[in-house]
């Protein structure tokens, strides 16, 4: 692909986003626009990836500054978006709400608890997402998230240096969607601080974290045991000095490992809480 083609793809996606998707599905909800923006941005990268994955082409971002395709795509997407973003937010008078969101995002509460009190309280009275809080949906969501995690991890661990490796971007986007749906299905309780919850919810969250920690320990123990078995078996292979080990990982394998650990670290509490609620069938 050429610079012009990437610019054209970015411009087309942004036009679709700001003239149809955001007005239709985002409206004046700054947070929702933010999630949509992230999803559309990642999707655009995912669409461009198969066309450029194996390409060694450099793209001229500035005179005398050539960069790989993905840096060019991300930077030009951001630059093209700035005026559209400014016009959209000015016309709808969303700047104050945007600044509140920025402050909330950088608050210590959000970083230490995962979800702010304001966000949790909003979720506790929310009815819009009740369709994903049905027991069957929650159960299927947990099963689907785990199946996807296993499938994508194995796939990325096996895939070679070809166009299919670009699916690591899709994996990231799908995990992000699962994380969002799981935490919304349990009304953010799994990530909330005490001040946002009542005593039953605090008890449930604490029990969930206990189970999540134990489950995560088992996952980590499984990975580390596999690692140790590999190391020990390497000792008996020809050429081994029994002391030094060398490992090689492909980019998709590194992605698979990274997102497997991060995915479970972030999703396990919500997964376990959703599973428990689905079995209560109330």
């Amino acid at each position, binding site marked *: 692909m050429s610079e012009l083609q990437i610019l054209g793809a970015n411009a087309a996606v942004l036009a679709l986003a700001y003239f149809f998707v955001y007005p239709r599905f985002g409206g004046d909800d700054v947070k929702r626009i933010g999630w949509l923006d992230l999803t559309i941005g990642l999707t655009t990268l995912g669409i461009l990836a198969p066309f450029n994955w194996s390409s060694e082409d450099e793209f001229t971002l500035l005179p005398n500054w050539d960069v790989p395709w993905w840096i060019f795509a991300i930077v030009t997407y951001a630059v093209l978006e700035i005026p559209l973003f400014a016009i959209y937010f000015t016309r709808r008078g969303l700047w104050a709400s945007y600044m509140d969101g920025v402050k909330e995002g950088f608050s210590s509460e959000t970083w230490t608890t995962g979800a702010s009190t304001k966000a949790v309280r909003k979720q506790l009275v929310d009815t819009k997402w009740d369709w994903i809080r049905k027991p069957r949906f929650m159960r299927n969501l947990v099963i689907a998230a785990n199946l996807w995690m296993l499938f994508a991890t194995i796939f990325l661990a096996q895939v070679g240096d070809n166009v299919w490796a670009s699916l690591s971007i899709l994996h990231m986007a799908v995990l992000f969607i699962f994380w969002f749906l799981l935490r919304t299905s349990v009304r953010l309780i799994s990530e909330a601080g005490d001040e946002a919850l*009542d005593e039953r919810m605090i008890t449930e969250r604490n029990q969930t974290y206990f189970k999540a920690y134990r489950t995560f320990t088992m996952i980590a123990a499984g990975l580390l045991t596999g690692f140790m078995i590999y190391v020990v078996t390497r000792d008996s292979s020809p050429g081994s000095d029994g002391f030094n080990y060398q490992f090689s990982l492909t980019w998709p394998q590194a992605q698979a490992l990274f997102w497997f650990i991060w995915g479970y670290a972030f999703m396990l509490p919500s997964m376990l809480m959703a599973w428990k609620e689905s079995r209560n069938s*109330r």
Partner: protein
Amino acid sequence: MLSVMSRNREEPVFNRIEEVRTAMGLSRQELADKVGVHYQTIGYLEREEYSPSLVLALRISEILKQEASELFSLTPFKKGR
């Protein structure tokens, strides 16, 4: 042998919250708002799937104008009380 008390489903705290609440004409949401908990928590309490803390039990008793011992019990209440 040391027995450990736990607040789980195997050791429910029986209650008459639903009976008294409906007699007073209160919805779950209204009682939840007065007590300061989520309305689902009232549902969990009424189904005896969650055993309340002493503070919550006393607060509910006060709002429902009942003695705590009349509202909560470790043994099932007789029907029609």
